[in-house]
């Protein structure tokens, strides 16, 4: 193993070192350095992105690096950049929030960077070992982040529940991997795919292994019936963390999901499809129904994110090239619209957990028309109304399922999208049609960085709603990496 082999790995090395440096900088800067540290972290993400662009891009012929541990392909680059963008936005959104809190920003930013490193490994892992380790790096950082406000009981409880269930899911995942290994004798994704393509007998050890790995992945993307942790973790976590875990890790989990199920396990599609079909249908139905009754916005958005995971799963059920790229596009769109929505929750949260109730949004349009308009756009997009990006995302995913012949699944999803209008529009109704408490109007946080990030999300959501072609093109170039189409 010569040193030159490590060149494509430089972005990851740099990010790890940067995370460590920010950890140390955080100790010396203390609680006052929130904004500076955010900028530093953002800068290191930017450098990492540049490094990916310079050295981490796929080269002809070499698809895996470092002894078959990591893929270097467009699929990996797509998800790496996506998760890094999400982390960057969260970093800027959280700076002011941390400044207002009593907690030190150094560890927070470092943990976000380490989680991002884990997500990058998940997006590019070419071996079950590296995928597992990347997953755990992301998961452990998340547990700590969710419990970061350690003096808030809610934060504690959310973290404990997330941790216990997360550890359970990784136990199941690991057992599944052991069965896979037992059935095939290899941990390498390419070799697994080759072995599966070669054999046409039904192997129950193998199928059970795939199902257990699937359960583990369904947990990570928060799909029913493995969603139990989601509302608690989302509600308990500090809001920027909620924003973070609802997008970046979900996208990374979907990257790993796609890599495994549409990449390595694709030859066994007929065996596992039914499980994913049920999971997708259950997730879409349960997520949307449960969201109807929530009064807490973070909890409502948690169920909404469960529902969105269900929509994305539909693309996996389709199992085609279009299914693959539609999920990739969907994750990108979802990232921006969900981050935007959580940005508004942060904005309304002046201190502690105030401003989380749906009622707190009453009369927002009168007092802050701009903010209300922005929230309206995200609600429209999450509900999937044109001309927002959410509509395009759903359109692609649903049409991939229709093409693959899964009409009923699409019917369920469309009906449930209609149901989702109710809870998204509850907020809109509160904002535009209700009068808030005029004597004591809910204050709004003025934070230029937060405004800028929300503005960015608004722009992307609207832009992709009318002109999704560039993102679709990028995603389609990733299809080839997984050997589909």
């Amino acid at each position, binding site marked *: 193993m010569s040193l030159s082999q490590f060149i494509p790995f430089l972005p990851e090395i740099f990010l790890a070192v940067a995370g460590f440096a920010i950890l140390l900088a955080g100790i010396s800067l203390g609680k006052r350095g929130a904004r500076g540290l955010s900028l530093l972290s953002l800068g290191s993400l930017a450098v990492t992105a540049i490094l990916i662009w310079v050295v981490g891009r796929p080269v002809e012929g070499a698809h895996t690096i470092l002894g078959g541990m990591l893929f270097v392909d467009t699929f990996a680059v797509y998800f790496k950049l996506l998760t890094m963008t999400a982390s960057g936005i969260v970093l800027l959104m959280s700076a002011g929030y941390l400044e207002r809190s009593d907690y030190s920003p150094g560890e927070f930013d470092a943990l976000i960077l380490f989680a991002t490193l884990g997500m990058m490994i998940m997006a590019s892992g070419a071996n*079950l070992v590296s995928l597992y380790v990347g997953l755990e790096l992301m998961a452990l950082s998340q547990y700590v982040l969710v*419990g970061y406000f350690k003096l808030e009981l809610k934060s504690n409880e959310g973290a404990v529940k997330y941790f216990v269930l997360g550890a359970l899911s990784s*136990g199941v995942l*690991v057992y599944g991997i052991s069965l896979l290994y037992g059935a095939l004798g290899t941990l390498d994704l390419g070799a697994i795919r080759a072995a599966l393509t070669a054999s046409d007998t039904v192997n129950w050890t193998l199928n059970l292994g795939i199902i257990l790995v699937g359960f583990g992945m369904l947990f990570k993307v928060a799909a029913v019936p493995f969603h139990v942790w989601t509302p608690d973790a989302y509600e308990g976590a500090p809001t920027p963390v909620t924003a973070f875990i609802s997008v970046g890790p979900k996208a990374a989990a979907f990257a790993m999901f796609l890599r495994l199920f549409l990449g390595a396990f694709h030859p066994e599609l007929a065996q596992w499809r039914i499980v994913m079909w049920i999971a997708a249908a259950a997730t879409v139905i349960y997520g949307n129904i449960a969201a109807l009754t929530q009064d807490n916005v973070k909890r409502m958005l948690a169920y909404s994110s469960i529902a969105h995971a269900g929509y994305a799963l539909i693309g996996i059920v389709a199992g085609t090239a279009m299914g693959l790229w539609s999920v990739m596009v969907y994750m990108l769109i979802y990232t921006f619209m969900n981050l935007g929505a959580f940005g508004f929750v942060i904005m309304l949260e002046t201190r502690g957990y105030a401003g989380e109730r749906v009622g707190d949004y009453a009369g927002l349009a009168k007092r802050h028309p701009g903010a209300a308009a922005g929230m309206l756009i995200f609600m429209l997009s999450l509900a999937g109304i044109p001309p927002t990006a959410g509509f395009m995302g759903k359109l692609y995913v649903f049409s991939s399922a229709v093409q693959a012949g899964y009409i009923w699944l699409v019917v369920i999803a469309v009906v449930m999208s209609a149901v989702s209008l109710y809870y998204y529009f509850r907020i809109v109704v509160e904002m535009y049609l209700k009068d808030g408490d005029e004597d004591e109007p809910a204050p709004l946080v003025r934070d230029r960085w937060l405004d800028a990030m929300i503005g960015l999300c608004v722009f992307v959501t609207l832009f992709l709603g009318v002109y999704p072609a560039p993102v679709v093109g990028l995603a389609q170039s990733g299809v080839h990496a997984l050997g589909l189409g």
Partner: protein
Amino acid sequence: MNPTMIPIPSAWILYLSAVLFVIGAIGVLLRRNGISIFLALELMLNSANLAFASFAFRFAGASATAAHALNGQIFIFFIIAVAAAEAAVGLALFIAMYRRKETIDVDRFNILRW
């Protein structure tokens, strides 16, 4: 080892690992105390380790798969390392929560609905 000894079938250890896994899973479902749940989780991880060790040994016996035989043991190594990390974070979390609430009974969390 004495070459005249009769080796045991790999499946035995696999059955044992399945039994341990199921015991752990039942424990996770039944126990309410956070630390006890975590103990049951460790049992599940160990059952996976056992399965890996057994498979690795089996693959080492056949020349076609011998090249990959060590990978199973490597995975155990990583599982153990990650389990240690998880234990550190999880137990610290329990302590932080205990300081707040003087209980680590997961059913008694009542601020967030379970």
